[in-house]
């Protein structure tokens, strides 16, 4: 165990700057800290509520492609953020729905439910399932919940330097899980993200698994203002371990139409849209 800790420490000390893309070491002290970057990302305006369509395209390494159409809603409340996703097609997954309450209090575990039409029951899901992949995609339940935010409750962040993604310059931040338990739960030992510091959105991320192997790459693109709010329209995830990939396409994004409170209930996910 001591050897592992020593190795991990050495890896962290020596590999960070080497992994940083276009790191500018002499500017490092002038750059905002990782925590500041994380705070800026998480305080970015996301609107009080949003509704949107989400198309999911999943491809395996042999080229087999599956498509999903969903409708999603998210709303901020005083004590929590509530998110619900309804599957509209295809038939084999239609009417499946996922509901989560993500509490502001980091001491409180998220509350999650999944409606499975084959059982006609709403199942309570353990919040520690958050590292499991979400319904066959390359996004985990935690990724789905966070959207483009990052978790300061789970990770320590440090700024490594500057970077460039999709022609936009930004800041390279590294995230390391605060505890081994968190790393095991999430399935990540490290993240490396290029954050566009003009709009405080992550444009590109890489994730390493708990054995420190490169696990997946996430590319966020087609970022445009919708109703005055910077909004991603495409998220591409490539899993390097399995060769599987997932493309998420957001459309009909609407921050202004009211989202009813009763859509974030177990009754609503049972009834469907």
């Amino acid at each position, binding site marked *: 165990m001591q050897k592992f800790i020593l190795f991990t420490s050495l890896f962290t000390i020596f590999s960070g700057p080497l992994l940083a893309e276009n790191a500018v070491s002499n500017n490092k002290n002038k750059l905002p800290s990782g925590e500041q970057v994380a705070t800026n990302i998480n305080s970015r305006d996301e609107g009080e509520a949003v509704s949107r369509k989400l198309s999911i395209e999943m491809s395996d390494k042999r080229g087999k492609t599956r498509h999903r159409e969903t409708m999603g809603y998210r709303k901020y409340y005083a004590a929590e953020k509530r998110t619900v996703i309804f599957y509209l097609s295809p038939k084999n997954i*239609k009417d499946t729905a996922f509901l989560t309450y993500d509490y502001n209090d980091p001491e409180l575990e998220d509350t999650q439910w999944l409606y499975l039409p*084959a*059982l*006609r029951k709403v199942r309570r899901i*353990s*919040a*520690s399932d958050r590292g499991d992949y979400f319904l066959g995609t390359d996004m985990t339940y935690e990724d789905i919940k966070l959207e483009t935010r990052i978790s300061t409750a789970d990770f320590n962040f440090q700024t490594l330097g500057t970077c460039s993604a999709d022609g936009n310059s930004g800041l390279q931040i590294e995230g390391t899980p605060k505890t081994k338990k968190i790393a095991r739960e999430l*399935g990540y030992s490290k993240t490396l993200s290029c954050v566009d510091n003009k709009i405080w959105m992550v444009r590109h991320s890489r994730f390493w698994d708990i054995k420190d192997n490169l696990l997946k790459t996430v590319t966020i693109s087609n970022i445009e203002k919708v109703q005055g709010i910077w909004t991603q329209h495409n998220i591409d995830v490539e899993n390097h371990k*399995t060769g599987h990939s997932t493309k998420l396409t957001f459309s009909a994004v609407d921050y202004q139409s009211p989202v009813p409170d009763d859509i974030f209930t177990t009754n609503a996910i049972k009834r469907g849209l």
Partner: protein
Amino acid sequence: MPHLTVSKVLIPYAQVLSAKPRLILATINAVLVAVLSCLFTSQAYAFDVQSSLISSAEWSARSHNLKRQNFQLTLEPEFILRFDKRVKLTALSRLRSMSLDALSPKKVTDNAYSLYSKPLFIGNSSEFELREFYLEIPSDNYYFTLGKQQVVWGKADGLKVLDIVNPQSYREFILEDFDDSRIPQWMVNIETSVGEWDAQFLWIPDQSYHVLPVDNALYTPTSPLLIPKPPPGVSVEVEPIDQPGRTLMDSDVGLRLSRFWKGWDLSLNYLYQYDNFALPYQRRSITANGPHVEIEPQYRRTHVLGGSFSNAFDDWVLRGEVAYFSDRYFLAEGFSDIDGITKGAEASYVLGLDWAGLENTLISGQLFQSAALNRQSATLRDKTNSTLSLLVNHTLLNETMELRLVWLANTNIGDGLFRLRASYEWQDNLKTWVSTDTYYGSEEGIFGQFDDNDRLTFGVELAFE
């Protein structure tokens, strides 16, 4: 806007059911016709139609010699009409055909179906059933679901304590998915909010009951715990089931209150229903030919009061159900009761623990116990009956492949059932599976009675939208 004649939807179904429509069907149809007429004729409402078809084929063979047991084809067309204001009409039917005479759709207690829910039997090997036909009408603080539907209560998997609103077909014992074996009923289902609680009220005038296989069908029950065995030399005559037939007075009613409270999903449930199993009341006599028993099956009412809960703790989910049945009727032991049935009460619970500590894996154990209370005489069943279940479910290849083990074990008799299943989704609309069902234990047991029916199954499902 497309126009659809309402009579095209309802009249053929009424013809299928019976030439003697009764008050209840007329009432339900009248309500549906009135609502649908408003929806279809008003220019203020537009609607769109979603349709889909699931077709499946399943081949099964005896495990020990691979001799063919059955080949079954199923077609399930579904239509959903969406109107403005989130009003929705769902129609789901099922056409099923099978090759094995011992699984014939007609070899069941078909009079356990009400006139309004009975499938149409086509020859000896096929059946057509309107599975579901209901209208959903949301309003400010109410949500109405009117028509033929399934209502599922409770938190347990595979073991039923509160999931008793709809009766069930035991044509394939408990091997069919509950979604397929539940018998949907015509009912009024109203949901509303009362403060922090969600309330659901059910009125179920449709008097359908559990459907059991008969006449030496593959899954005809033989356990003496379920079917009384006459002593040698006693002649037996079984009368038709005396079914409750009063539309209003014999209706089932139910009420569920549920809420989310400090991390707990809670519900309180009440049901006033006929027990869905017919009770084989006996009339014993001595005739010139010797002892004679006349069986007069009857249904009896009970109040059911119960509740359910679930919560998550770290890697674990704790869930459970409990129910108290005020009036239970048990098979009496020997001649301890004059009509072979003894009255009492019953308390049941199921306690489940799910563990999700391994990636894409769910391991779940359940303990189910029921206790017969206040019995007026000795019963064939033990006072306490216990069943354990284990579920291990693992998905891989981005959930295109699923491996599942289910083990059910009755600890009173020592019998049980092992189920293994592997399924693979080749495409979004194409799935295949292979499974085995293996019984063990004494033939007196609920599971052991089917020890000769171990089977290997291969299936394929194709969906169209």
